[in-house]
């Protein structure tokens, strides 16, 4: 029997496994995906949001706790547990050396990433390189790993104590367990149910899944039905607007469309529906998925002109291109008359001052609803381009309610040996919205806590081990 069982194979699961092993526990990690798809959504990540009170290795200037907390408060609109959020923030300041000790490399900020080098530490090669490093370290430390191991149920006694995990008829016992098997974004049925119908349309049927195809939410549903305390709204998620031609799963970062703030966004009726110039793109990026989801047909069209070319990250698919607005409207399958009218109305409302995409500039619209408050320039320089966008779900926020020890609760009572980390509990900190690198910060902080606590619950701790050694060496 293993001391600690880890269910899941992404960043949080690996952090938990490594920490538990470091305490001396024997560890088995069960990843539901095959080896080549291992790592869940972590393989699509890129960075870690880090608090720091002085410039540190790859981070410039300072990003103090209070500013980090305010940023989180703003994006979540208050849907966050301050105690757990501050714990995550503080942990983000000190985890990098531990990450490095397990082979993770950070890269010095270069080229386009400079303006996020203050708040975020970038993984060299991205999240898959990080996941590879953790798996290598885990194997080296003697952690047992099984792929294609999708746990479908747990045996839990009446006191909320973990007894065993089940894979079909197989029963895997352990002294303690960490759940880190992600959310339910790959489960189309559940998404459909969570989002429901708007104007007769099943909203989620038009969603693309930007992350892993393996997060079916099986254990999340099991825990909910088993009476675990839950937190979060099932319709809340990291939901961004991505290229409508993106693959159904695993589109990852490259399907993003970065030009929304440079032009206008129209819906299926060729109408604008939100201020494209509200704030900098990294800050507003995560709101557009939800905005598009609430539009008819769950589709939006970002329209730009030639002035924008070379000012945004190149998209993976070529844009629809036309020499006149009328033709572009036709190519998009929109009513060309309404399309041209909307753009001309916008163009006429533009009050162009000094355009500067690097600041909240003074180019704005007047007398237009909704307004475009910055970077408003007429769309008048042919050729014109458009990108069709759909909501892309990266990960969901519905999860298990935890305390600062990452313990799973039943009716307000903590389990003695069942812990949870990562996407399965991120909703405690992140009730809605998103800001870059926070998912990895939560996963790393709570993965490490859950691993340590699980080892403790199984009778292992560094303290205890040291004492045992002292006894053996005759020092005590």
């Amino acid at each position: 029997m293993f001391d600690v069982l880890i269910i899941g194979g992404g960043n949080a699961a690996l952090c938990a496994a490594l920490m538990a092993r470091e305490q001396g526990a024997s560890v088995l990690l069960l990843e539901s995906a095959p080896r080549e798809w291992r790592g869940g959504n972590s393989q699509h990540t890129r960075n870690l949001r880090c608090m720091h009170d002085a410039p540190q290795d790859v981070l410039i200037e300072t990003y103090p706790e209070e500013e980090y907390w305010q940023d989180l408060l703003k994006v979540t609109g208050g849907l966050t547990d301050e105690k757990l959020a501050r714990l995550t923030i503080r942990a983000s300041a000190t985890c990098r050396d531990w990450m490095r000790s397990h082979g993770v490399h950070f890269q010095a900020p270069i080229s386009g990433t400079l303006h996020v080098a203050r708040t975020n530490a970038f993984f060299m090669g991205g999240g898959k390189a990080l996941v590879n490093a953790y798996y290598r370290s885990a194997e080296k430390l003697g952690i047992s790993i099984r792929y294609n191991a999708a746990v479908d149920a747990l045996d839990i006694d009446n006191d909320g104590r973990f007894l065993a995990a089940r894979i079909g008829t197989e029963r895997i016992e352990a002294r303690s367990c960490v759940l880190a098997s992600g959310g339910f974004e790959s489960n189309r049925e559940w998404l459909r149910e969570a989002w429901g119908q708007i104007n007769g349309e099943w909203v989620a049927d038009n969603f693309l899944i930007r992350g892993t195809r393996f997060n079916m939410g099986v254990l999340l549903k099991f825990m909910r039905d088993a009476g675990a305390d839950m937190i979060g709204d099932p319709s809340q998620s990291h939901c961004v607007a991505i290229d409508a031609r993106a693959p159904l799963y695993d589109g990852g970062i490259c399907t993003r469309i970065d030009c929304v703030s440079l032009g206008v966004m129209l819906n299926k009726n060729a109408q604008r529906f939100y201020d494209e110039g509200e704030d900098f793109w990294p800050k507003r990026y995560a709101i557009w998925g939800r905005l598009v989801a609430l539009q008819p047909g769950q589709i939006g069209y970002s329209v730009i002109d030639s002035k924008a070319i070379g000012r945004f990250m190149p998209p993976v698919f070529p844009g629809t291109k036309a020499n006149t607005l009328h033709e572009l409207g036709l190519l998009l399958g929109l009513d060309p008359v309404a399309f041209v009218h909307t753009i001309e109305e916008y163009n006429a409302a533009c009050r162009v001052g000094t355009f500067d995409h690097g600041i909240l500039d003074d180019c704005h619209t007047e007398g237009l609803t909704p307004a475009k408050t910055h970077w408003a320039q007429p769309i008048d320089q042919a050729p014109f381009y458009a990108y069709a966008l759909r909501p892309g779900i990266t990960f969901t926020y519905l999860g298990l309610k935890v305390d600062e020890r990452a313990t799973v609760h039943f009716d307000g009572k903590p389990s003695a040996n069942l812990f949870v980390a990562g996407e399965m509990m991120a909703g405690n900190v992140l009730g809605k919205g998103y800001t870059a690198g926070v998912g990895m910060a939560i996963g790393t902080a709570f993965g490490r806590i859950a691993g340590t606590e699980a080892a403790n619950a199984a009778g292992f701790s560094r303290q205890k081990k040291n004492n045992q050694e002292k006894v053996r060496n005759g020092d005590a």
Partner: protein
Amino acid sequence: METLEGLINEARGLAANELEVSRVMTICNSCRYCEGFCAVFPAMARRLEFGKSDIHYLANLCHNCGACLHACQYALPHEFAVNVPKAMATVRLQTYTDYAWPAALGTLYQRNGLTLALATAGALSLFLALVMIMRGTLLFTPLHGNFYAIFPHNTLALMFGTVFLFAMLALGIGVRRFWRTESPGPASAGAMAEASGNVLQLTYLGGGHGEGCNNADDAFTLWRRRFHHFTFYGFMLCFAATSVATLYHFFGVLEVPYPFFSLPVLLGVAGGIGLLIGPTGLLWLNLRRHPMHGDQAQKPMDRGFIVLLLVTSVTGLTLLLWRDTGAMTLLLAVHLGVVMALFLTLPYGKFAHGIYRSAALLKWAIEKRQPTKLRTADE
């Protein structure tokens, strides 16, 4: 990818392997997670689309280190099937073929195993035949390392000088064609120093973090860099040994046989040992290489060149050890035959990668000093 994109690329006159690099770079350019690994990615990020000259430049900038393949969220089994090292390797061969001089010999790259075999067999036969003609038989009473008693110095200098100069000319013309497809502008002293440093230290086999590149799996290793260093510096030492010996002969400093503790012999021995360790290591790594790295079809070219270098050092060192015996003539003929084969195939084999890669690194050193035309923001 889109059929529309395919049509556009076809209109741009790209071959299938160049199209693949264009497709892959378009995906990489919208991801950019790999920018810390090597120069390919920052160079890519300065472009929005990829024409023939961009593709050839980026392909030669790629060191085939494999890091970006293991880190790639879009590698197989993902439907995007991104494999930068493979796409780049395929185009590199295309580059060598396209820019080769004389153009007709460019096709030798395509059948490099055969080329090497024929060159080696031919050169060996030539030297053995020369011995027969000049001395009638291969085995003699010991000549005590007096090579020139068999092949007069001037004959050797003429033969090897001609072949070597031709090789340098052919490679020079090829790399000049490569450079001129899209010249990045004049090279500053800083750019030249940086590019030289990158070549001499193999900076981009360091992985961006100093732990090395990938070989068999997703773990990093510095051995490819080390064995490459042994090979390169071993080759240079052997070259220096030959050059010094030639100078000694012309200026009458020393007469053959040079004593063991003379400069040409010491340089040759050191170089020979380097060329023993380096190619052996590279061959070992090559056999254990992850099958998705690079272009499998080019393995005969890689291994052919490695083995030829290895045979050069083995025959050279053997010759040194037995130069005082009756076997010297035979050993000398074999060694010279191998070296001649090496020289003959320099411009039409794996050796070319060093020349083209150095040129690409210089292009990058120049380009990175120029302001970018794009203002794309990341994240």
